[in-house]
């Protein structure tokens, strides 16, 4: 098709785009490398006092030593056990309570205020009590972590149940499915995405509480290691410990992601 010469012809200007994200993979590691390089330079040149921050190479050395001496696993193993046992307990009970709150008006009316009142209670404040209630051995550590994981799990679970599309439930009822089938086959699978994303938060909190839990009579454990480093003001060890906890958090998050992709492959 041709245009008459006298007519001004102009291309339509582009005005869309933006507000979406393309992953830029190399930037993340680059930022970490830059931060670390800056710290290394700053601490070794004395521009950053060694009271303020440790030298990254020192932290790396400490981590290597920890690994080679076998102490790493001596600390990691009890912590992982505590995390596993405590978080599992808290999450299982939390999901159970959350499901009941989600399904029964009476339970909701009775327990929701209790959970709401428990949420802002700082678990470290209860440490002395936990010693009395559960002893200074593993019991109190499990209990502390479990309590920490419990409340966010409850909240995530009942919210997830509330968010299950009522249309699915109505469909189940319209086919005359028994109540238990509706719960098992419709409500629970429908709530799973919400429960799993609540799990991410519960597990992050569990890691944070690991340190509080290991305040109590723990000789080994990453939390105890970090606390000891703090009290010795040994920044290299402190950061080595924090680094391990941070990596632990990232790994757990990643594992939850895998579980999500597995169980929730039906999502778009």
């Amino acid at each position, binding site marked *: 098709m041709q245009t008459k010469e006298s007519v001004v012809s102009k291309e339509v200007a582009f005005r869309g785009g933006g507000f979406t994200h393309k992953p830029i993979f190399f930037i993340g590691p680059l930022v970490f490398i830059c931060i670390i390089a800056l710290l290394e330079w700053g601490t070794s040149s004395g521009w950053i006092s060694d009271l303020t921050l440790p030298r990254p190479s020192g932290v790396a050395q400490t981590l290597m030593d920890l690994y080679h001496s076998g102490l790493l696993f001596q600390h990691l193993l009890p912590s992982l056990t505590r995390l596993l046992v405590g978080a599992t307990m808290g999450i299982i009970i939390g999901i159970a309570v959350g499901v009941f709150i989600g399904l029964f008006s009476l339970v909701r009316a009775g327990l929701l205020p209790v959970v709401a009142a428990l949420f802002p209670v700082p678990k470290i404040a209860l440490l002395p009590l936990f010693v009395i209630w559960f002893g200074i051995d593993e019991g109190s550590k499990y209990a502390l972590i479990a309590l920490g994981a419990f409340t966010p799990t409850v909240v995530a679970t009942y919210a997830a149940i509330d968010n299950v599309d009522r249309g*699915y439930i*109505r469909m189940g009822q*319209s*086919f*005359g499915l028994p109540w238990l089938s509706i719960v098992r*086959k*419709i409500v629970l*699978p*429908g709530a*799973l995405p919400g429960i799993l994303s609540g799990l991410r938060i519960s597990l992050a909190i569990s890691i944070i509480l690991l340190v509080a839990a290991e305040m109590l009579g723990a000789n080994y454990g990453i939390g105890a290691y970090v606390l000891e480093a703090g009290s010795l003001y040994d920044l290299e060890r402190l950061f080595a410990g924090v680094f391990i906890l941070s990596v632990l958090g990232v790994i757990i998050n990643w594992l939850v992601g895998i579980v999500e992709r597995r169980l929730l492959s039906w999502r778009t």
Partner: protein
Amino acid sequence: MNLHVNNISHSYGKVDVLKDINLNIEEHQIVCLVGPSGCGKSTLLKLIGGLEKPSSGKVMQLGEPPQHSINPLTYIFQDFALLPWRSVYDNISLVLEDHGIAKNELKHIINDVLARTKLTEFANAMPKQLSGGMKQRVAIARALSVRPAVLLMDEPLSALDSQTSELLMDDLVSLWDREKFTACYVTHNLNEAVRLGHKIVVLSRRPGTIREVVSIDIPLNERKNHVQALDQKQQYLWNLMREEALLADKELINAD
């Protein structure tokens, strides 16, 4: 089995939704419910299906439902209501599992309805892989699997684009031709109503009352050849409703 809506009124809290509804749904007939948006069509269908308790009045089943019917009153929803975490096959098996049907028998029933709705090759597909039309076809297959005495359809085609709903309408007509199912069909589309309904019930604005019942005697499978006559019916219905639709559309929705 006929259904008889006996003097039903219904209100949600202070909102009167339906008033004095009397209606017969006769065997082997499709009754269409049309009316302005918010007039209580869905509510009436829920009352008929037992998903809602009427404030006053009753819905009666006249006669026993057929022996082999697993779920006499069966719904087909606008939004398909397929569980996204179950495959096509499992979505159908969901509604059969609780009735103590033997494994083999179950498999047989499901494969049969899949074949009847031409879905056999999609048995293992997940809902998210299906287009809207296919999803609604699965919902229809699921409804057929429980051998309903009456199908209750709440705007089953309105979520589909018009090309797809055109295709599905043809499917429904040929299905009825073969199986002569009974149905109560809610729609806001007068074209659908005149193509599928033996009886078209026009409801007024909220509180919904029956304004008029229009019957169409042309057999379903011949309606394509009576464009003119149907168009007249449709125009007649549209004139009945136009004013109310306009008012209903301009109504402010109370924030509460």
